[in-house]
């Protein structure tokens, strides 16, 4: 336990350091993009978050399959924790996206395939979290595992459908190509690594929290059970 704690402390420190480095890279090292100006720097938040949201939902998908296969509640905890963090990152994507789009495209939102798919992805996993609240204790894990699988499999079909839908209507707004220079690539890599470490840190902490909650519930149920049995013995 203490060993793990020490490891977590070191990990926390490394993540913090990488975050500072990423901030430095974004604001000092990376040059200002010519056509979009300083707003382009949102890109370094937006892209890693999008990648991590997708990665988190992928973990949920895999853990859901493993839960149904192995019936071990650990996989359920991982699926749940990952989905929650995925929703957090997906929310960041959905907020930074429009903030970037407004000054550049002059609209907050376009119904383009990637944006729309991300929005639906966000909906699916918010529903996933909601399902966990309303489902009975006995079926919560299986239901959410099944929904986690359905939701993730649905994503590529949704993306295809929306792309086909958009190409039929003329695109009102086309994104201008970004000219990326080498320092920008470096910055993106640093920011991605920093965000990935943050993601892992959050995920580990969330799983630890879920395990603790499970333990406490287990102990409490055990004690209540003991008291109940004791009481019955005295009564009888």
């Amino acid at each position, binding site marked *: 336990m203490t060993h793990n704690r020490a490891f977590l402390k070191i990990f926390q420190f490394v993540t913090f350091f990488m975050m500072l480095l990423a901030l430095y890279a974004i604001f000092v090292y990376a040059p200002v993009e010519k056509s979009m100006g300083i707003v382009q720097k949102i890109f370094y938040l937006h892209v890693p978050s999008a990648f991590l949201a997708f990665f988190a939902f992928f973990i949920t998908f895999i853990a859901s399959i493993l839960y149904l296969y192995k019936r071990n509640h650990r996989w359920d905890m991982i699926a749940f924790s990952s989905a929650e963090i995925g929703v957090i990152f997906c929310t960041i994507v959905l907020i930074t996206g429009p903030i970037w789009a407004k000054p550049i495209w002059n609209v907050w939102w376009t119904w383009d395939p990637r944006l729309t798919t991300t929005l639906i992805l966000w909906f699916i996993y918010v529903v996933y979290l909601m399902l966990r609240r309303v489902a009975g204790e006995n079926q919560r894990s299986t239901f959410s595992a099944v929904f986690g699988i359905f939701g993730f499999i649905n994503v590529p079909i949704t993306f295809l459908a929306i792309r086909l839908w958009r190409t039929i209507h003329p695109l009102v707004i086309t994104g201008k190509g970004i000219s990326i220079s080498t320092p920008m690539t470096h910055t993106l890599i640093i920011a991605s690594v920093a965000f990935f470490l943050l993601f892992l840190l959050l995920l580990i902490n969330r799983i630890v929290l879920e395990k603790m909650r499970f333990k406490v519930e287990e102990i409490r*149920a055990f004690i209540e059970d003991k008291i109940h049995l004791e009481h*019955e013995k005295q009564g*009888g």
Partner: protein
Amino acid sequence: MDSSWQRQSCQSVRQSMSKDNYIIEARGLVKKFGFKTVLRKIDLSLKKGDFLALFGPNGAGKTTLIQILCSLMLPTSGNVWIAGFDAGYDREALHKVIGVISHNTFLYNNLSAYENLKFYGRMYKVKNLRERIEEVMGLVGLRGYMNDHVQTFSRGMQQRLSVARAIIHDPLIFFLDEPFTGLDQHGVEDFKQILKKFRDQGKTIVMTSHDLDRGLELCTQAAILKSGNLVYKEDISKIIQDDFKEVYFKLTGEQALPV
């Protein structure tokens, strides 16, 4: 007993019974709902022709145990074999040899008695379904009500039709979960007659009840379930009715009701 699948299932029953004589066997059954333990390591074995009456106060886990035995529910750990079929894997084959009667009738209100039996008969692939339905309707004394809708039936009639539904495929084993609930005196007497018939035919029966008198009258074995533990199991020949009551009240801590 004339349909081919039944002969088949009987054969596989015999095969599995050659290994051990138990037709119902449960080992180390544990069931948890969330963190709440309902059954704690229950072992139970019954031979062919046994009639087990399972007593216990409310919330002792009787219904859960029955539901696990007929594989409506999976145990958290432990195994169940019914007529040689593993309840975790061979559900379909297992369901062919069991009949379940509970306080819930499993009948469709908008369908007539005949249609209800036709539906269940088709699900069990009963041969000569029409004749079989007439036969079981006669057995439960509802021959004249074939085309009446279930919703017009009284509680007692519905329960009798439920019996007809459960015996349509001539099962080897019966699970009865509080079958007397909601029946009037007359209905109870009728139902007892039907149960006696099953017992005399050599069917294996597991019944839960909290009515000690009615349960003890029919069974060959009695058991008491308390807080998920099987605290008592004895052959009827070794039980004297009044003593059993005392044991029951002592074990469960329930108060005897004034008669």
